[in-house]
């Protein structure tokens, strides 16, 4: 009788644990799904820094040209700071390609550099997008497994 009770308790406990783990996986999958459905999820920003004053008319021409490139989702040119920010869909464009095309388009009229964030810089400031916790990695793994 005692053995039977223990066995039933063990089975019940196992079923409960399996159900809880299963529910957790469903919940984590749902979190990852919502994240991947975020329309901005695949958009990466990049920046070109012009190292000399740029004519505002030329700035708009370069900005408008970059906006026509494949995968570009948005552009903004701060003429005072000499910075062109553009958003592109990850996998459909590269910042190296955009920079090269922008310089060719402008006939290399202005000295410019691709702005690259250093590893040290990434350790400070706003942490948005830096959540690589195990839970987030696991939920992304679940999402990719079923998609």
């Amino acid at each position: 009788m005692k053995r039977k009770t223990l066995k039933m308790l063990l089975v019940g406990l196992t079923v409960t644990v399996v159900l809880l783990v299963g529910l957790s996986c469903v919940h984590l999958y749902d979190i990852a799904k919502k994240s991947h459905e975020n329309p901005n999820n695949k958009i990466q920003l990049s920046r070109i820094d012009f190292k000399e004053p740029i004519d505002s008319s030329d700035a708009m021409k370069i900005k408008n040209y970059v906006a026509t490139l494949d995968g570009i989702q948005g552009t903004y040119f701060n003429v005072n700071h000499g910075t062109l920010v553009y958003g592109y869909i990850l996998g459909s464009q590269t910042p190296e390609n955009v920079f090269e095309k922008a310089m060719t388009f402008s006939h290399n009229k202005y000295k410019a550099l691709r702005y690259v964030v250093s590893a040290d810089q990434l350790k400070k400031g706003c942490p948005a997008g830096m959540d690589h916790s195990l839970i987030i990695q696991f939920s992304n793994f679940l999402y990719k497994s079923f998609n």
Partner: protein
Amino acid sequence: MKKHFIILAAGLIGMTVITTSCKKKKDETTTPTPTPNLYTRVGGSTMVSDPANSGTTIQKGRLTLRSVTDSSIYVIAADTQMAKYFPTLLGEVGAGNTTGFSALSKNFTDFLCVATGSTDYSYTGKSMTDAHNHATNSRMGDGTHVNSMKVNSTDFDKFVGDIGTGLAKNGVTSSNNASLVNDLVALLNTTKSSIVQR
């Protein structure tokens, strides 16, 4: 007896007249219409198609705030004065990872939805004080320069200015909607004392 009855009747009639008049005056006093909150003013909970996610709908208020947020993020990323605070915006991530743009867009949109009065969303990030204090967020400074990342008033005002530019990119300016611009700026300024720690 008759005299007492007349006095009592007069008293009752008088009281009836008085209470009826008071009630009438109370009825005539109009209850002021509550001013709609900022979230309602930017679209509220009316569902509309999400232009960025075909086949789905989104609350109009959230769509407005997301559009302003996303436009503002481009402005902030192009602002060299803001670079040290937002390196993750331009830090390149590998495929499958959340971009800094995506994360900040969601977090800040959630924050604005809650701050403007929506009850359908929640902001789960750190408080503004904790997020900008090295003691509770080690990213705001380093071991030898704990104050190096603390926000000062000039940088905060620049940030608010960048949001204003983001608003203008969505067609909202002081010229065509001064009250909305002023109210949004006032809302952002309520966070100033928490964020400015230098």
